[in-house]
């Protein structure tokens, strides 16, 4: 099952511990995450379901390319890294 880790910066706002979540796309994995941690949804996605502009997700070492549909494939051994991108000071 894919593993999802979150930036510590996010944990300052809302609980976000590393967890395993099923799915074959980034969207499916995130929906599984939100099923157990519903507050995380609005922190990572906007109301249109798009990845927030200053949030990045990497599948293993590759940043995802579909930031709207979140259709990038994920394998059972993938590690998803949810990280912050640069944003102000």
């Amino acid at each position, binding site marked *: 099952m894919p593993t999802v880790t979150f930036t510590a910066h*996010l944990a300052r*706002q809302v609980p976000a511990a590393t967890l395993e979540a099923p799915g074959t796309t980034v969207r499916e994995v995130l929906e599984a995450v939100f099923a157990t941690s519903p507050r995380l949804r*609005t922190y990572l996605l906007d109301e*249109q379901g798009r990845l927030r502009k*200053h949030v990045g997700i990497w599948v293993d070492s590759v940043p995802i390319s579909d930031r*709207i549909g979140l259709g990038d494939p994920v394998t059972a051994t993938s590690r998803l890294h949810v990280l912050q991108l640069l*944003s102000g000071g």
Partner: protein
Amino acid sequence: MPDLLVATRKGLLRFAHDGKLVEPPAFLGDPVSAVLADPRDGTLYAALRLGHFGVKLHRSTDGGASWEEVAAPAFPAAPDPEGAPAVDMVWCLEAGGSQEPGRIWAGTLPAALFVSDDRGASWRLVDALWDRPERKDWMGGGYDHPGLHTILVDPRDPRKLTVAISTGGIWRSTDGGGTWALCGRGLRQDHVPPERTFDPGFQDPHRLAACAAAPETVWCQHHNGIFRSTDAAETFVEIRDVLPSAFGFAVAAHPGDPDTAWFVPAIRDERRVPVEGRLVVTRTRDGGRSFEALGRGLPERDAFDLVYRHGLDVDATGEHLAMGSTTGHLWIADGGGESWRLLAGHLAPIAAVRFLPD
């Protein structure tokens, strides 16, 4: 003075009536874009604009000692998310009428009005304003998107609402938001083609303030100067020859005297700093026929302070004022602005100051 809330780029501060900072600040390090102290039940609301994680709304029922996250205003999900709107910032929060418990209004970037009837637990977009065909003409004013920054709720009849948009004019509803009409005849916008100069739909009202005791008197700090309405924003008269300048963002209206209002001038659009480096507050007490420049206790030279739209407030007595700048200075005044005192001088840029109701 009453207790004071100060929304900054790096947290929400509360100053007690004796001027001391109540420790610790809330949301330390996070941008706070709007704040509301609900006079009906004492609940505090704070809107955050987290750089990475979006717009959030929190409320407190213990004066800010603890906060709980509630829903933030959000657009309905569109069938095609490409190019669909998303709330970028909550720019203003206002309480509904005294007979509307739990009703809260929010104005946002992009320019939209949202309403909650359960103290922020859920929100809905006010479609009747969002669906106006004139919205295609709205433009960004200071931000990439147009924004709704002022919501006036008539204290005598809360179905009467007035909102202002930079840049999209002033809109009124008399049925609680069900229908909207463009108002603001007499406003003048310079940086549009001449045919549009007096078109109410192309105006950039920076901020509106109404007299609580006489809500038909509405003051407008506009991009092009200072205007006053005595018919609830239907029509405005421009007030010229205000020294040192009629350019600015903030305005506060005296709660009991419709002839008194305060403004914070800057040089002009392309030079948003105090005139000759001297920060003053301008006050009229005769309906705009004359103005005084009040500077006692404010920096007399080398000041770069700019006061944003929500950076000036007056308390319910009309005697105490608070003012916060983008340079992180916070002042309070007694005597209706006669004398100012620096309360804090090393804050983050200040988005809003707001007295708590007594």
